[in-house]
């Protein structure tokens, strides 16, 4: 294992931003790169990478990494915002994950994105441990952008039960995932249910998924279990939004991942002061709760839940 400062950027009034990478295996090989927190609230994403670093260190010490395998993990590139409790770049509120591939003569976050992207270049596989833009929790899954270069079958080797294929929107074209793929890295975004709080169980599943991928590709020997479950690869467009027509207090009646039947009550929206029932949100079809709005308050037409329909 080699811990290295990939780049530093000085900041006025504070210590320099030093972005560190942890390298494992063959130094000259660029097999897998894992990117963690790009936003200041991505604590779970940083934690997952920290757990991965611990596991990879043990695997390397025990000689379990293939000699053809070189891995880079960057757990956090935005402590500047994380340390002051801000989600986006704390000086100007820009999102580093809307700045790729970056521009090294451009504005601050364009430069940071460019330096990160330079460090992540040339790897065969890339995993971005990402968070959702929508405020809520989702089932652990991989997301792949449909750039024309996507390789969804490779994603099966992670063994996660769900792989979502996303048709890029215009704003997706400046994300790490999209640009990684355009620049010849097979890129996957790895989502777990939480962002600003640690969920150890799902973080462990994420680490296992990355190790399973390495094992399946013959890049390491480790004792990660095979997944028996069928892997569901689906187009993200089939997720069905469940939205209230009124605002109020949101009380869930199911939990993330529950199997639901068409017409089943999933949540209630209550008058926040009078307490009366304003709307019952019901399942639009048979399926599974894939996303759940996290805040107790909900506005009209916010996405309260997303149901993954049963696939034929």
């Amino acid at each position, binding site marked *: 294992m080699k811990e290295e400062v990939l780049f530093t950027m000085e900041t006025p009034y504070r210590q320099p931003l030093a972005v560190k990478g942890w390298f494992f295996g063959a130094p000259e090989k660029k097999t897998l790169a894992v990117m963690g927190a790009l936003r200041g609230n991505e604590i779970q994403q940083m934690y997952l990478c920290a757990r991965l670093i611990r596991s990879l260190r043990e695997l390397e010490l025990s000689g379990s990494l293939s000699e053809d395998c070189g891995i880079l993990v960057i757990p956090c590139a935005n402590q500047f915002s994380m340390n002051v409790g801000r*989600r986006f770049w704390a000086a100007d509120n820009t999102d580093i994950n809307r700045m790729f591939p970056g521009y090294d003569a451009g504005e601050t976050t364009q430069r940071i994105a460019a330096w990160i992207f330079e460090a992540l270049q040339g790897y065969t596989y890339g995993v971005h441990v990402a968070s959702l833009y929508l405020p809520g929790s989702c089932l652990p899954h991989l997301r792949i952008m449909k750039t024309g270069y996507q390789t969804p079958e490779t994603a099966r080797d992670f063994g996660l039960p769900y792989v979502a294929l996303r048709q890029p929107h215009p704003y997706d074209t400046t994300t790490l995932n999209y640009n990684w793929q355009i620049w010849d890295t097979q890129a996957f975004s790895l989502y777990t249910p939480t962002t600003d709080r640690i969920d150890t169980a799902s973080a462990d599943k994420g680490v296992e998924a990355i190790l399973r991928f390495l094992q399946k590709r013959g890049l390491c020997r480790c004792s990660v279990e095979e997944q028996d479950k069928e892997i569901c690869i689906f187009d993200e467009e089939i997720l069905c939004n469940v939205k209230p027509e009124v*605002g109020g207090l949101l009380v869930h009646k199911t939990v993330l991942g529950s199997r639901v039947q068409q017409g089943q009550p999933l949540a209630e929206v209550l008058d926040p002061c009078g307490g009366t029932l304003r709307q019952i949100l019901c399942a639009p079809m048979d399926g599974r709760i894939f996303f759940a709005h996290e805040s107790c308050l909900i506005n009209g037409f916010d996405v309260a839940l997303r149901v993954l329909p049963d696939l034929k």
Partner: protein
Amino acid sequence: MIQEVARVPLAVGEDLVIRKQRLGDGTPRLCVVTGTHGDELEGQYVAWRLNRLLQENSKHLHGTVDIYPALNPLGISTMTRGMPLCDLDMNRTFPGSREGAMSELIAARLMEDITGADACIDIHASNIFLREIPQVRINVNTAEKLVPLAKYLNMNLLWVHGAATVLESTLAHSLNAVGTPTLVVEMGIGIRITRTFGEQLLTGILSLMAHLGMWDAPVPPVAPPIVSSDGAVSFVNAGCSGVFFPTAEHGTRVEEGQELGMIADPLTGDIRAVLRSPVNGLLFTLREYPVVYEGSLIARILGGSI
């Protein structure tokens, strides 16, 4: 007549309501929109002045003018650039979707309301960091159609810029894509109002209305703007962090090598960098917010072959 464009119930005892003022009737129809970014207020003055002027001189108005002062009411009311709650830049949510989340639904309703107008003016005010001279920004793909219209707006500069995919999610791009000619005005600076710029644009709006056959009162002549492409714009970014003290004056001509300002270190008393103009030209963008990081945009200069 005040009309409601979109209404969404918020969680606790309040609705988010986007409203417009409709003046006149029939065709042609002009839409003047502003307040997409909650920290940009220059358009508030223009909306107010245009509103009063048209109401006091309604006999000269032939057609419909829709004034939308606040596309992002929650942002303006809380001095938040994006949409509070979801932390989204509203100008990255268009054309929106009736099936999408709240922000996309609002975007879709705005699109439905504005689409079909004979022209739309989308007024912005830079951000809290940079001061801009009055200008119209036009995507190169729509330049042929929009530059002739933009010349009526009485702005100092028409900047025809390259096409970037991220801009496809803006209101202006989305409206232009469905055939509603939309001009993006940038002027002044965030959280401030520069009344002289507002008056300048007001004259421009009346001039455009006269061109569209909507206004028959006399309008002062407008000065022809500089029309520029990307190639003529030079950028000056900070090479180090610190506090920026400008020495050049915004909106003036500068010479190659002329000092624009310095980056200072208040702790040591050092001058960390002196920033100079790379070309002869017009200093049309200048840093206003003093604290800078490596990469912070300091200035844009229009020079070279215009």
